[in-house]
């Protein structure tokens, strides 16, 4: 069976029929090819399921990703981004115009793409990802992240993994993560700007972002004493102004990275220091870059990674081709030295604190004291705890060490479980005898808690 082929250079003038935009996409979806999965279905009904899929795009890859998703046939797209448009975004974030400066990125991008791609619905959420709860994330079929911090990534990762419920097929949300900050593979140099990665996580099934945390290169830090005594590079002078001079002189109550007056102060300080040490190269924009930790983003690298994330979303949604995921789950891209990509399987870690040990249900009598509860834990075969320390998310129940914390939490031993935690709360147990393994339990009260009179 021959498959229609798209040939470069023969992009036809769009016909005026409303659906002509999707001609080639439809061809891909309606024809079985050599790589289509066994479950690939070319029926109208199957093809139209894509119209109902709800996908979420979060953070940085922004403009590129939204445009790609809309042009790949996704119809119900949500975008979440807390940023507002800055004048410095306009050189590469092509959905924004000068008149949009100061407005919400999510909202402006959503309106722009909706206007250009008829039939697509884009719902903007102008907030932090952490502002949304589990019910919000439960509504999506696929989540695509271009988050710029490890903290935000960890949060999204653990949230989606905790959604996974073996009783509910809908609760397994594929997580597609793209990043263009530096990723480190042992032995490769760490130049910035031309590198990126895309990866797919199937919650609790494949290696998660927490399992892969060691793939991130830590931010390159210069020893404080170098900054204080023997600066060698313009960056050292700027970091000195930023970390040391600012705190000594406190020219303004609090450093605001976006206030030109503050940056100018740092720039002048750094420049004077650079002259003292005969170092050249301190400029205003370098100062801004170092202080705001701007990793020089190359627009095309961003576009490549966003496109790769979108393609994985498309393949997961349509089954036209094998996607990243079950076998190979990590694609690294480097344009530093010519061009290089490598795709591999990052193994799931059994002792991963997020996906290694999901919280198990533990039936407890809330009228037990914490002491009785700890003793009952010691009898459980899988735990075999000798010196357990127990915490809930915002509450320390009992710590065996250090001494001060033991003393402060000892009174809890006499308190009843129901007094310390709520029904359904999660607790984490660590014990030196467990090594790197931890236990998490979700407490289920099987009796009613009777508060002491």
């Amino acid at each position, binding site marked *: 069976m021959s498959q229609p082929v798209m040939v470069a250079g023969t992009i036809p003038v769009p016909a005026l029929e409303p659906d002509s935009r999707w001609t080639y996409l439809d061809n891909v979806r309606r024809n079985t090819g050599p790589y289509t999965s066994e479950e690939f279905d070319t029926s109208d009904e199957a093809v139209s399921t894509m119209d109902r899929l709800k996908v979420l795009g979060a953070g940085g890859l922004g403009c590129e990703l939204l445009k790609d998703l809309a042009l790949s046939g996704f119809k119900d797209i949500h975008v979440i981004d807390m940023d507002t448009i800055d004048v410095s975004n306009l050189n590469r974030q092509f959905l924004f115009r000068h008149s949009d400066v100061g407005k919400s990125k999510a909202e402006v991008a959503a309106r722009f793409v909706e206007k250009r791609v008829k039939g697509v619905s884009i719902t903007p959420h102008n907030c932090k990802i952490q502002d949304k709860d589990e019910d919000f994330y439960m509504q999506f079929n696929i989540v695509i992240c271009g988050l710029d911090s490890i*903290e935000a990534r960890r949060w999204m990762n653990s949230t989606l993994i905790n959604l996974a419920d073996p009783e509910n097929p809908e609760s397994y949300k594929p997580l597609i993560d793209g990043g263009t900050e530096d990723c480190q593979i042992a032995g490769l140099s760490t130049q910035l700007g031309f590198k990126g990665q895309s990866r797919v996580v*199937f919650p609790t099934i494949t290696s998660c972002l927490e399992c892969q945390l060691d793939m991130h290169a830590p931010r390159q830090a210069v020893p404080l004493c170098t900054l*204080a005594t023997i600066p060698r590079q313009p960056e050292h002078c700027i970091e000195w102004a930023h970390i040391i001079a600012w705190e000594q002189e406190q020219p303004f109550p609090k450093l605001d990275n976006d206030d030109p007056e503050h940056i100018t102060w740092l720039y002048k300080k750094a420049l004077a220091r650079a002259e003292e040490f005969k170092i050249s190269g301190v400029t205003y924009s370098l100062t801004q870059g170092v202080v705001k930790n701007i990793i020089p983003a190359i627009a095309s690298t961003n576009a490549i990674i966003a496109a790769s994330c979108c393609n994985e979303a498309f393949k997961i949604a349509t089954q036209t081709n094998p996607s990243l995921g079950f076998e190979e789950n990590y694609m690294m891209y480097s344009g530093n030295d010519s061009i290089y990509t490598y795709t591999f399987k990052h193994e799931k870690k059994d002792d991963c604190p997020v996906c290694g040990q999901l919280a198990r249900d533990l039936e407890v009598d809330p009228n037990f004291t914490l002491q009785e509860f700890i003793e009952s834990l010691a009898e459980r075969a899988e735990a075999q705890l000798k010196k357990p320390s127990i915490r809930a*998310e915002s509450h320390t129940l009992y*710590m065996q060490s*250090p001494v001060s914390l033991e003393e402060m939490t000892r009174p809890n031993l006499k308190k009843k479980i129901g007094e310390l935690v709520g029904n*359904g709360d999660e607790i984490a147990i660590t014990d030196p005898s467990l090594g790197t393994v931890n236990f998490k339990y979700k407490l289920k009260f099987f009796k009613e808690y009777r508060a002491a009179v």
Partner: protein
Amino acid sequence: MLKIWNMKQKQQSDANADAAAGNKKKKVTAAQLRVQKDLSELELPRTMKTIFKDPDDVLNFELTIEPDEGMYKGGQFHFTFEISQEFPHQAPKVLCKEKIYHPNIDLQGKVCLNILREDWKPVLNIQAVIVGLQFLFLEPNASDPLNKEAAEDLRSNREGFKRNVRQSMGGGIVRNEAFDKVFKTRD
């Protein structure tokens, strides 16, 4: 749409794993869990103790060091530990609360310790940082100075440096700079 649930079912029947979930409430974060583990494995010598203002917040605490040997013997030094949600990918932030005369600690309390900055690795733990701090009081290091004057004194005139340390610890003035009194009060 790829049916990843089917894969999960397959994996489950293969491994016969048991996992449970549901609509969960507040969960312990990975950073908190790691700090909990680090703290519960902490082994502090007699010269150090931790102070938790709020036992429910294990990400922020204070460490007291009372060196029982070396040039800083008899002093009591307080350090604040501030741990972010990026821990252990990011090192704890550590500051000395007192203004002290020390080649590796500046007048604002910033500490030059390699594992707190350029050599931090996620395999290191809170114990390693504490041991590092203890070491700074036993062996102040003149080759990585943060307080240049103090380092110069240590290099050029070790006896003079020792006298300066005692002077500063008593709340005295060294090189026109007044320092905090850090001698442990008898109790």
